[in-house]
C-alpha cells in the first residue's frame, strides 16, 4: 500500500515537471500575451485602440499604455509630466531613461526629439522583446538601449547626461535600491553641469515624503509636479536648473507650447517648489523602510 502511494506521488511529481505549453494563448480577445520573465508576471491587454503592459497580477498596475493609432499620445499623466524636464534643461543633448516598459517615452523621443540622444536602460530582456513585438518599439539611430540594472548601469557608465529620467518600476513599486541617497548621489555624479534628475512616483503615501527629503539631501533645488488627474507626481531635481517654476510658462512657450501631443504649458502649471519636510526620513542604503512607508497612506 505504502509503495503504491509512493509510486502515485512520484507519478504526480513527474506530471508536474512535464513542460507546460507557454501561456501565450489569448484567454480572451483582450489578452494578447500573458507570461513570466525572470522579474515579473507580464500581461499585455488591449482595450479598443489602447494597448497596455501590466506587471504582476493587479490590473491597475499598468506600466505602459499606448494609443495604437497615435502612439505619441500620453495616456498616463506622468509620462507627459516627465517631458516637463525639457523646461528645466531645454538644451539637453543626452538623456538617460531608466525603465523601458512598453517604450512610450522612447517613441516620443524618436518622433519629436530626434536631436536628443536617448540612452534607455531596461533590466528585463523580456520586456524589451515584448515592447518590440507588441508596442512597435524600435531603437532608432540616435538612441541606444542597454539591458542592465539601472543602478549598475550608472555605476559602470562613464557617460555624462543632461537629464536622467527615473521610471524603473517592478510589480510592487520602485526597486528599493533605486530610492536611496547613495543612488541619487551616483545619478548626480553622472550629470553634466546644470543637469537634472527626474523621478516618476506616486504621491499618496509616506514614501513620497521620504523620497522628496532624500532628493533634497542630495540636490540644491527640488521641484514637484503634482498630477491633477492621477495619483502620480514627478520630482525634478538639480543643483543649477536653467529655470525656476515661475519661469516655466515662458520656457514652455519657447518650445511652442508642445512636444508632439504633450501640452507643456499645462504641465508647467503643475510645478511648484517641493515643500520642506522636517520629519521625513532620508532613505539610505543602510536604512530604507520603503515597503512600510509605501503602505502608510497619507
Amino acid at each position, binding site marked *: 500500500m505504502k509503495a503504491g502511494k509512493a509510486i502515485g506521488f512520484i507519478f504526480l511529481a513527474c506530471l508536474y515537471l512535464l513542460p507546460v505549453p507557454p501561456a501565450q494563448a489569448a484567454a480572451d480577445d483582450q489578452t494578447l500575451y500573458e507570461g513570466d520573465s*525572470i522579474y515579473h508576471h507580464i500581461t499585455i491587454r488591449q482595450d479598443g485602440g489602447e494597448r497596455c503592459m501590466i506587471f504582476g497580477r493587479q490590473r491597475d498596475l499598468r506600466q505602459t499604455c499606448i494609443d495604437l493609432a497615435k502612439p505619441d499620445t500620453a495616456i498616463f499623466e506622468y509620462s507627459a509630466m516627465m517631458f516637463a524636464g525639457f523646461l528645466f534643461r531645454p538644451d539637453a543633448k543626452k538623456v538617460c531613461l531608466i525603465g523601458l516598459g512598453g517604450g512610450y517615452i522612447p517613441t516620443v523621443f524618436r518622433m519629436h526629439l530626434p536631436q536628443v540622444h536617448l540612452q534607455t536602460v531596461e533590466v528585463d530582456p523580456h520586456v524589451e522583446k515584448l515592447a518590440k513585438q507588441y508596442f512597435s518599439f524600435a531603437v532608432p539611430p540616435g538612441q541606444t538601449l542597454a539591458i542592465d540594472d539601472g543602478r549598475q548601469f550608472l*555605476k559602470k557608465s562613464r557617460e555624462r547626461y543632461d537629464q536622467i529620467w527615473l521610471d524603473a518600476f517592478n510589480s510592487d513599486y520602485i526597486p528599493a*535600491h533605486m530610492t536611496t541617497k*547613495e543612488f541619487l548621489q551616483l545619478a548626480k555624479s553622472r550629470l553634466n553641469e546644470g543637469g537634472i534628475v527626474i523621478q516618476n512616483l506616486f504621491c499618496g503615501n509616506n514614501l513620497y515624503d521620504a523620497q522628496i527629503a532624500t532628493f533634497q539631501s542630495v540636490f540644491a533645488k527640488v521641484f514637484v509636479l503634482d498630477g491633477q488627474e492621477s495619483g502620480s507626481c514627478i520630482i525634478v531635481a538639480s543643483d543649477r536648473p536653467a529655470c525656476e517654476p515661475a519661469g516655466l510658462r515662458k520656457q514652455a512657450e519657447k518650445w511652442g507650447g508642445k512636444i508632439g501631443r504633450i501640452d507643456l504649458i499645462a504641465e508647467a502649471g503643475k510645478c511648484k517648489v517641493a515643500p520642506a519636510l522636517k520629519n521625513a526620513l532620508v532613505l539610505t*542604503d543602510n536604512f530604507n523602510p520603503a515597503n512600510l512607508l509605501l503602505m502608510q497612506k497619507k
Partner: protein
Amino acid sequence: MRIVYAVFILLLVTFGAVVMSLEILSSNLMSPYFGGSIYIWGSIISSFMVHFSVGYVAGGYLSRRSPRIAVLAAFLVVCSLWVILIPAFYKPVCELVSDRIADVRLGSLVAMNLIFFVPVSIMAMVSPYIIGITAAWRRQSGLTAGMVLFISTVGSFFGTNITAFYLISLFPVSRIVVGLGLICLCVSLFTFALRADRRMKR
C-alpha cells in the same frame, strides 16, 4: 542537567534565528551593488546552503573529536565577532567585487561567500554539534536529533519573520547586524560562564 538542556535550547533558538535573520538582511546588503533581481536571491540562498553543508560536516566531525560545549562556544565567539564586524567591511568587499566582476550572478555569489562563509558555517555547526554531544553521553538523552532540529527551525521561523516584517522597517540594517552579533556574543559568553561541560559530568 536542566541547565545543560536550557543552554542547548538557548543556543539552538538564538543561532537558528540569527542565521535566517542574516539571510534576509543580506539582500539589503547586496542589492545596492548587484541589483535587486531574482539573481540576488539565488546567490543568497545557494551561498547559505553551501555554508550550512560545510557547517554540518564540520560540526559533526568536531563534536566527535571533542564533544564539549566550551569548544562549540569558542567557535561561536569567533562567529559573533565576525558578525559584529560585517557592517564595517561589507561595503569595501562589495565595492571591490562588483568592480572586478561584471556578471551580477557571479559577483553576488563571490561577495556572499566572502562576507558570510565564516559566520554562517559556524552557526550551522550548532545543531550537529549538540546532537554529537548528546550522542556521546553514556545515557539516554532527552533531546532526540529530530527535537534538536525542530527547536533550531522554530528559532529560524521567528528570526525570518521578525526581521522581514519588523526589524528592517524599524532600524538601519547595519545596526540590526551589529545587534544580532552582540546577542550572539552574549549567548556564547554566557554558555562559557555556565560551565555546562562540568555539569554534564555530574
